[in-house]
């Protein structure tokens, strides 16, 4: 029999639930993007919802962790602002349903194409509140952009996948939506395409997207109208070749959400950009599709027909130059195995924050 799900409606109630927990608790926001969920009673944070502070003049937003991402995006959009890190919508790629929450975005450090310019979710997260594995409420950071007071648990919580605590509130710094965005595309082979992306990222022309896929090589330039015109022209001159200009963000939404990689196992590979081609070359002879983001620093790979979802091949190819997480499919460990020293520190941290070992237990090793 499936245990009843827990739906706290306040931080205090959540604390009570964790203190009272007799066994493991399987944490999720909206269940749309988790790499894995632990065993036990399901706990959903949707009941912890609402924006508590939004100051457009200070580019600051504070909201409860269960607040839907879409609700926040709509409120920001009405003021011409946004979360700059472009959290992906992975529902189709991961065959999930549900409503993505801010807490889930933070817990998975979900970041899209603009990361090459402005950083990941963790770089925009300025404060966090959470309930640890003993039911204590802890806060770190706050609502200001520069804050080095005490150890930075904000960063530690970002990408902790619910293994250190249940995030209850998050604070973000925001970005004004620029008045203009242009995408440049050119059809070139992979190796040349990736080299163009790296060259563009190494230029002073402030590229906010650098991807390669079935669409060829693509670059995005955003900002004030005149500045975008200038940088687009400068990039074309620098890179040579034939570039087509397009408006709209459909291409970037596709890259962000790993669209079109629907078959087989799905991997998310972080690597040194120059290593990207070699990682995918290791799959020669195996049916696969790939999208390269972040100038090659991120590769989404769908692999078909391999018993361990391709773990041995892909992790072998990325050893020493990055790491690979299995997002869809089955292998021995979805999260990349860590070096012994790092693994020991991570294990000890989880034991400190969750001594009963109940929060999304075992998913990260």
């Amino acid at each position, binding site marked *: 029999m499936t245990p009843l799900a827990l739906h706290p409606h306040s931080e205090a109630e959540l604390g009570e639930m964790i203190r009272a927990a007799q066994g493991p608790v399987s944490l999720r926001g909206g269940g749309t993007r988790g790499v894995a969920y632990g065993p036990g009673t399901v706990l959903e944070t949707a009941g912890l919802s609402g924006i508590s502070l939004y*100051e457009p*003049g*200070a*580019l600051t937003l504070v909201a409860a962790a269960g607040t839907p991402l879409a609700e926040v995006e709509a409120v920001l959009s009405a003021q*011409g602002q946004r979360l700059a890190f472009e959290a992906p919508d992975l529902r189709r790629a991961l065959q999930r349903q549900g409503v993505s929450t801010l807490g889930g975005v933070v817990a998975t450090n979900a970041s899209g194409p603009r*990361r090459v310019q402005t950083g990941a979710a963790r*770089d925009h997260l300025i404060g966090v509140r959470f309930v640890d594995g003993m039911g*204590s*409420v*802890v*806060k*770190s950071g*706050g*609502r*200001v*952009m*520069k*804050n*080095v*007071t*005490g*150890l*930075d*648990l904000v*960063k*530690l919580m*970002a*990408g*902790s996948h619910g*293994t250190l605590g249940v995030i209850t509130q998050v604070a973000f710094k925001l970005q*004004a*939506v620029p008045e203009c965005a242009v995408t440049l595309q050119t059809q070139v082979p992979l190796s040349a395409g990736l080299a163009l992306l*790296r060259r563009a990222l*190494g*230029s*002073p022309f402030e590229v906010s997207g650098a991807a390669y896929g079935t669409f060829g090589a693509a670059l995005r330039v955003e900002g*004030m109208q*005149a*500045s975008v015109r*200038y940088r687009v022209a*400068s990039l074309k001159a620098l890179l040579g070749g034939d570039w087509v200009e397009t408006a709209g963000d459909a291409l970037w939404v596709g890259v962000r959400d790993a669209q079109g990689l629907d078959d087989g196992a799905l991997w998310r590979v*972080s690597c*040194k*950009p*120059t290593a990207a081609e070699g990682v995918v070359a290791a799959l020669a002879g195996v049916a696969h599709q790939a999208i390269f983001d*972040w100038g090659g620093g991120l590769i989404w790979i769908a692999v078909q027909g391999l018993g361990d979802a391709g773990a041995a091949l892909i992790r072998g190819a990325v050893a020493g130059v*990055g790491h690979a997480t299995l997002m869809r499919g089955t292998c021995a460990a979805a*999260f*990349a195995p*860590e*070096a012994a*020293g*790092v*693994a020991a*520190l991570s294990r*000890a*941290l989880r034991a*400190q*924050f969750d001594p009963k070992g109940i929060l999304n237990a075992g998913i*990260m090793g």
Partner: protein
Amino acid sequence: MDMPLPDQRILHARDGLIARLRGVLPADAVIADPAETRAYECDALAAYRCAPLAVVLPRSTAEVSAVLRLCSQMGVKVVPRGAGTSLAGGSFPTADCVVLGVARMNAVIETDYDNRFIRVQTGRTNLAVTGAVEADGWFYAPDPSSQVACAIAGNIAMNSGGAHCLKYGVTTNNLLGVTIVLMSGEVVEIGGPWSDAPGLDLLGVICGSEGQLGVVTEAYLRILPKPEGARPVLMGFAANEVAGACVADIIRAGLLPVAIEFMDRPCIRACEDFAKAGYPDCEALLIVEVEGSPAEIDAQLARIKDIALRHNPVAYRESGSEEESRKIWLGRKSAFGAMGNIADYMCLDGTIPVSELPYVLRRIAEMSAAVGLSVANVFHAGDGNMHPLILYNANKPGDLELCEALGADILKLCVEVGGCLTGEHGVGVEKRDLMTVQFNSADLEAQLRVKDVFDPAWLLNPAKVFPLDVTASRRAS
């Protein structure tokens, strides 16, 4: 400011400790002569001084590891030190500690433009990181005022910012990986020239940990292509409130200057007397800098001018040349020197929500008037990071205490309005005892648990960051 009494057992074991340090390090890497250790008795928080038991200056990660392993075995405390420029006493020694300085480890290990990173030993100065890549058109973005002298090790320990972090972020946003030596001597590699951690973001909690978790000996840093150009504009206003409103409007308009610096009247006066930068006589002054090609700069400055003119500036001066840019920055960059010329000063570092700027400046004026000390304000207005400078006379009995009390009250005010105690300098010993203003016991306990993991015996930089009574049982065990 209290520090724990030195451990007599360690003081008595001094000679044996030094002999064993000499056994694992080259002769010139161990400093034990009291005449020489005195050079390490303080950092840039010079009000507090205490010579350490010994100083070691290793040249490699392996030597750092050997020192930490030895000190760990002998139960000796270690205070890590970059270049000793901390304003918070981050590398302030105790009499029973070994200071571990990384200054001799300053090599560039690898530069990779294709993958946009540089790997350095952390004793390298901030400016020398940029120095290694700027001929090729690149730079390292975080730019603390002390960048000529400060080391990357200290930048990582304090998560240092700078004037240009409004656009480029602070150290943590530009750090890709580290080699860290734990107190046990174990060497751990965290991160690397790729994005994201495979598991928990250990790098995120190591950056800004003020030497509590380990000694970072090597780092992968993000480097960026240099912008084509930069140009500042200077504007004067009749009131702090008006300048504050102008800042909010610039941010609200979606313009992203690389820097927005704010100076109030006492600071403008002092800088003008000292540096003769030609600043206007006004209540508040903003320096706003934008980057890009000449045409992009013109376009951005046109928008900024539109906004500024709506606030009736008493002065508006766009730089038209390198020389004029230099002059606009001259006063701001010499602010601390100018203050030092007038009096002794204490530099605060709280951050506030930018919307609270006018209120906080008014309260600071009232509070300083009430105790009879002058306060000059200079700060990074775009992100609310304030640097009130409290002027006092070190030779006047009681003045330092009065100044420290006012400083504490101003920082409490920062927390009260939704801000924090320190935006970029760190807690160190200076703000250690104020931590309970910002954090409750559960918040602090969570931080202490992180230290328990990395340094279970509490030997690394103890008696810093956290109030002494909060850590007493851990330090004693």
